[in-house]
């Protein structure tokens, strides 16, 4: 009995050890986003609160928590409050299978990639229900756009993941990283044999998180703020948290699936710089999360029909062809798998 209780307690501690850094990372990521976009616009960005404006994110959190949550008249109260939670829970739950290092994972499940797909497909419920429960036209339009977009890009993303699975021969994320180890370092990772799919995965990831240039679900120039137009205070903060946690998750996954996770790009003989470790994963994920911000500051919003066209008529055919190519790579031994 005591052993089981201890196991539950220990697992809870491990969950907290993942979720609290993720939430803190979201806060710092928001600050970093405002700073980076500020620099790209030749502005200062937040610089008043704390050294270099570092505490701006926490000030924002306090502001959001103290604000009143306004419920629109005729809104469906139950679903209105459930929707932000439905958006946040999958975004945090998905982290359970993300490996941070060799053996450093909360749940080392065999079907890790499938679990990730399941969790990312659940996140859309929060958005749809928020749109519907708000009883607002703008919110409903945003929800509709988002639902169609997420489903479309999930297909392209799923097909891209299949290519990784074919090469790695496993659905386990740790096994996928291990399959990318090799003497050639950087060139043994899956980004090289799966280059088109890697690009497609990344673009689909941006679309899946409803980020610019695919942020038509928010589309502030047309539908005000889309699905969360009626949300204020802490309910809005939860949507915000879910979106940014998803962005960080997609960045980590891109690093794990295509860039060798915690593996070092340099050969082992180079000393400390060649040893694999959590630091490398962090560096890779940071580069990807920076790309999110760079895209937002650079690209104008896609037109809605073109988003659909890109997903269905460009990405999905390319990924289907590349599944075939990946199968050939594996069958004829064109790429070496594992060290």
């Amino acid at each position, binding site marked *: *009995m005591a052993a*089981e209780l201890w196991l539950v307690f220990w697992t809870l501690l491990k969950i907290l050890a993942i979720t609290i850094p993720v939430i803190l990372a979201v806060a710092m990521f928001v600050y970093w986003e405002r700073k980076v976009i500020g620099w790209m616009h030749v502005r200062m960005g937040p610089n008043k609160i704390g050294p270099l404006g570092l505490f701006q994110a926490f000030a924002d959190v306090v502001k959001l928590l103290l604000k009143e949550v306004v419920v629109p008249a005729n809104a*469906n109260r139950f*679903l209105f409050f459930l929707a932000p939670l439905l958006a946040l829970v999958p975004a945090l739950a998905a982290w359970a299978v993300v490996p941070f290092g060799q053996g450093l994972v909360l749940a080392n*499940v*065999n*079907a890790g990639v*499938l*679990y990730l*797909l*399941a969790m990312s*497909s*659940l996140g*859309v*419920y929060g958005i*749809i*229900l928020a749109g*519907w429960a708000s009883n607002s036209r703008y919110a*409903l339009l945003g*929800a*509709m756009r988002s*639902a*169609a977009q*997420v*489903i479309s890009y*999930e297909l392209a993303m*799923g097909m891209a993941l299949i290519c990784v699975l074919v090469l790695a021969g496993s*659905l386990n994320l740790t096994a996928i990283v291990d399959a990318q180890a090799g003497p050639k370092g950087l060139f043994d990772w899956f980004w090289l044999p799966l280059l088109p799919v890697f690009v497609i995965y990344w673009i689909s990831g941006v679309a899946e998180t409803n980020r610019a240039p695919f942020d038509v679900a928010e589309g502030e120039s047309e539908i005000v703020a889309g699905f969360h137009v009626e949300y204020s205070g802490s309910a809005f903060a939860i949507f915000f948290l879910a979106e940014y946690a998803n962005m960080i998750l997609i960045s980590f996954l891109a690093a794990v699936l295509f860039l060798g996770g915690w593996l070092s790009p340099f050969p082992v003989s180079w000393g400390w710089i060649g040893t694999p470790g959590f630091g490398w994963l962090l560096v890779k994920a940071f580069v990807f999360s920076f790309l999110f911000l760079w895209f937002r500051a650079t690209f104008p919003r896609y037109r809605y*029909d*073109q988003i659909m*066209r890109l997903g269905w008529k460009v990405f999905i055919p390319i990924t289907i062809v590349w599944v075939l190519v990946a199968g050939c790579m594996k069958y004829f031994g064109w790429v070496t798998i594992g060290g």
Partner: protein
Amino acid sequence: MNPQLLELICFYAFAAVAVVSALMVITLRNSVHAVLSLVLTFFSVASIWLLAQAEFLALALIVVYVGAVMVLFLFVVMMLDINQEKVREGFIRYLPVGIVVAAVMLLEMLALIGLRAMHVAVMGPNPATEAGMSNIAWLGQALYTRYLLPFEVAALILTVGLVAAVVLTLRHKAIARHQNPSEQVRVRDRDRVRIVKMDAERPQEDQA
């Protein structure tokens, strides 16, 4: 507390949620709520499958049904203005058909339970654990070796269904306007704007 008891408690909890939410699907008045109860039903059934160590089926159920099919379902239900009275009217009319279906399902379930009671091994032991493989690896091997033909036939039927759905909804209307994206990309400013050169003019009043 032994693990088996814990598993049993989990099973009954998930099963209870599944049954209650399935009941809610047909009793709730609000159709969006009904769809959400269906989502909950799928979710608890997936949890039961996870308990039975069918992890691939469980996750596939969530990815396919919860993640895609039900989202589209919700999408449609939200767009429709469903008249509750009309839906209620059909209840009595379809009741006999419903009772027949329910009776057949009950018989099938009783047959299965009866076989179990007679200790007839319906399923046999879990083949994946016997082969010492993960559930997914075993399923993949079984599908692509032993059951390749049925699997391919199922895939073919699904493809035919897909093509049929596309053909049914794709109607070429003579008046429909289509966009050609490559044409839109190739467009240049001189195709859209004509710069007219003209001298400055005085207003009419001044000349008079």
